[in-house]
């Protein structure tokens, strides 16, 4: 270390002095010097280092940055905007059903909301960091100091600006000399030669890039407001014209010219092999079965199921009691529909003495005006309906003797 009095430079014209510069060899020296400058009460000064030095912030007395709050607010804005914009486009501007989901489906909107939150926070973080640090800085008086070039490599610097209210050419230089710099404290002069604005070439470059960036938007806008006689431009032709045959179209490859192929004769789809005549068709040896097939369990549970299915599929026409006075029938009558064929009274004798197989067949394939219900009601449920229907017919024509002794009293 040299004697401190030798380090005091000759002060030139005060208005030309930008500040005083001290150089250090290690980050530890920089931190201890920064502490001394901080404690001396300076405010317009800075440290320079090739890499982030841990603990430099408190050593310089720098207050926590406001950047996290800016980023937080930017993230919130990005997320809110994304959610609002998706809501507006999908419910108000251009409502369109996608995959049967509601117009405004939060789950589908989360990914974009997330991305826009992150994007807006990240971009804001980057640009705010630059702006808060007053970057980019095209020219700085330190650029003219030869040894300052090593700040990008292995040297550390402190610069106290002359504009600091506490700055005094002599005292400040003495302070810096006391911090143990390498070599002399150097006076940095204001840079009167180079301008603080961007070089002309950079400005022109930015202008050209900026103008070019408008072109795609201008062309898109033009295309939207004008008409054209030329054919549409196909961006992805093999998606617009696909090499495939659609249903019900012709295909010369096959002899029968059908694009859709039929099943090989004798094909049975899984679960469609209905080889049990009694169960699937209600027939035994070609005539209607008198008994329920063994697969049908005669139980309260089946009865309840049958009652429920009857309530859903049969009562609209036949009515709750099977009398044929269902809501559809009553409505047709009230409208005086001339072509209306009244539904059958299920209690009539002709039906009461029909075998269960025939009733099953009627439900499955329909009777006169009544369509078949095989498509809507599966086999087990159709048998359950038959079971319930049998009970209903019995109950509707019941005599007092049919009722158990114990129950009879309440009715008499």
């Amino acid at each position: 270390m040299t004697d401190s009095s030798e380090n005091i430079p000759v002060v030139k014209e005060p208005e030309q002095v930008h500040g005083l510069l001290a150089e250090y060899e290690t980050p530890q020296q920089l931190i201890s010097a920064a502490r001394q400058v901080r404690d001396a009460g300076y405010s317009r000064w800075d440290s320079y280092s090739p890499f982030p030095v841990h603990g430099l912030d408190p050593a310089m007395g720098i207050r926590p940055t406001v950047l996290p709050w800016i980023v937080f607010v930017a993230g919130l804005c990005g997320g809110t905007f994304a959610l609002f914009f998706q809501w507006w486009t999908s419910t108000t501007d251009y409502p369109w059903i996608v995959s049967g989901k509601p117009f405004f489906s939060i789950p589908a909107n989360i990914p974009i909301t997330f991305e826009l939150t992150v994007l807006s926070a990240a971009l804001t973080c980057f640009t705010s960091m630059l702006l808060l640090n007053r970057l980019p800085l095209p020219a700085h008086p330190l650029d003219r100091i030869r040894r300052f070039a090593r700040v990008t490599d292995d040297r550390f610097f402190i610069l106290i600006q002359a504009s600091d209210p506490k700055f005094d050419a002599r005292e400040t230089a003495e302070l810096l000399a006391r911090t143990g710099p390498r070599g002399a404290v150097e006076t940095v002069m204001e840079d009167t030669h180079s301008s603080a604005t961007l070089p002309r070439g950079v400005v022109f470059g930015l202008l050209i890039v900026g103008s070019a960036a408008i072109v795609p938007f201008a062309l898109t806008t033009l295309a939207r407001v004008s008409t054209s006689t030329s054919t549409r431009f196909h961006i992805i032709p093999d998606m617009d014209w696909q090499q495939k045959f659609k249903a019900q179209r012709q295909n010369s490859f096959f002899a029968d010219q059908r694009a859709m192929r039929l099943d090989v004769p004798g094909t049975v789809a899984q679960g469609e092999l209905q080889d049990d005549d009694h169960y699937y068709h209600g027939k035994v040896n070609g005539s209607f079965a008198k008994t329920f097939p063994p697969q049908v369990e005669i139980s309260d549970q089946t009865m309840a199921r049958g009652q429920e299915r009857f309530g859903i599929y049969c009562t609209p026409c036949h009515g709750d009691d099977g009398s044929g006075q269902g809501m559809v029938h009553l409505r047709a009558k009230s409208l005086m529909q001339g072509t209306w064929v009244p539904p059958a009274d299920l209690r009539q004798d002709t039906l009461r003495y029909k075998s269960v197989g025939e009733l099953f067949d009627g439900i499955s394939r329909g009777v006169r005006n009544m369509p078949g219900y095989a498509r809507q009601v599966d086999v087990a449920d159709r048998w359950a309906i038959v079971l319930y229907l049998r009970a209903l017919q019995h109950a509707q024509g019941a005599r007092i003797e049919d009722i158990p002794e114990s129950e009879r009293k309440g009715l008499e």
Partner: protein
Amino acid sequence: MSHGEEAHLDDRITLDADGGALFRGFAIAGVAGLGGAALLGMSDTAKLQRAYLVAFMYVLSVALGALWFVAIQHLTNAKWSVAVRRVAEILASNMLLVAALSLGVVVPMLAGSSDLYVWLDRARVEQDHILHHKAAYLNIQFFMVRWFLYFGFWIWLGRRFFKLSVQQDKEGGAEISSSLQRISAPSMIVYALTLTFCAFDLIMSLDAMWYSTMFGVYYFAGCVLAGYSTLGLALMWVQSKGRLSQSVNEEHYHDIGKMMFAFIIFWAYVGFSQFMLIWYGDIPEETHWFHWRFEGDWKVVSGLLLGAHFVVPFFGLMSRHVKRNKRSLAFWAVWILAVHYLDLFWLVYPNGSGDVPFGAVDILCWIGVLGIFGAGAIWRAQKVNLIPTGDPRLADSLAFENV
């Protein structure tokens, strides 16, 4: 990078007999909790099994989280974490005890109980087309093979990290560090596979019809959260006993807090990704799993989970000051450990009935299993240094500062 003060190791770094009170507390809680649960749950063993499964998956997640922490620090040659790594090594080396605790799940399975896992019911498997299809994987023999692989690997890895690190305390030198770094890379792959399939086997197969390939990652997110939260709390407890007072400081807590914050987001990210694919696909065999969780009282639990496991801690842990303050970090660590239980409860229990059968048995099981695990960890902690003194990167860790 580290500058400034040199490393100081004038701390007390052994627990000696000071863990005795907590060891006894944990041991008593463990025995009393499990005993009480067994007594109370005797009448309804199906319920007891579920309660025990939640509690077991809970300690397993703590141990797996700690194991992952140790492995990733070695894998990345991390310097900051050396001062806190021993505590995680102790938690992870407890895996043998966790394997013993898993017997509470496995023994009823071997005894033929299909209360939890329908795929153990032979008659159901014969009848059900889907179960029949999956029987090549979901059967008790193959399950036992996998169980041995999972725990065998975890016990081996946890013991290896712990033993070599303790050996390094005496011998020093960088060879042990680099050999641990070498095994950590392939171990990470095996770890990912074992954890994923263990989560499939023990939780996902509760509903054997349902499947989600992301399920293992979802459980992993919970493991890491539980691991970091336990690590933070354990360090605070050690420091409250006057140990590691200077070795571990707010810089280390800050990093632990950052990882908690990151994995809060990761948990939500994975959970949502799993949900969105199923929601969009809208296939009944997949959606029923969520329907069960959106019906009846489970609707409230699901909402609570979203709020308490993501929204609230997301904003709560965001600030740097919260992570650097021991008290506030402790609050969030306890919070995460509580909602992690809720998360596992939410994974294991719903069965379509809409009821949320939370009761004393659940709490007793949780206290019991956690007590045993904690007692094991403290027993081990009393015998070794609380800091890997032989690790050449220790000085860097002690002087570590966040930018």
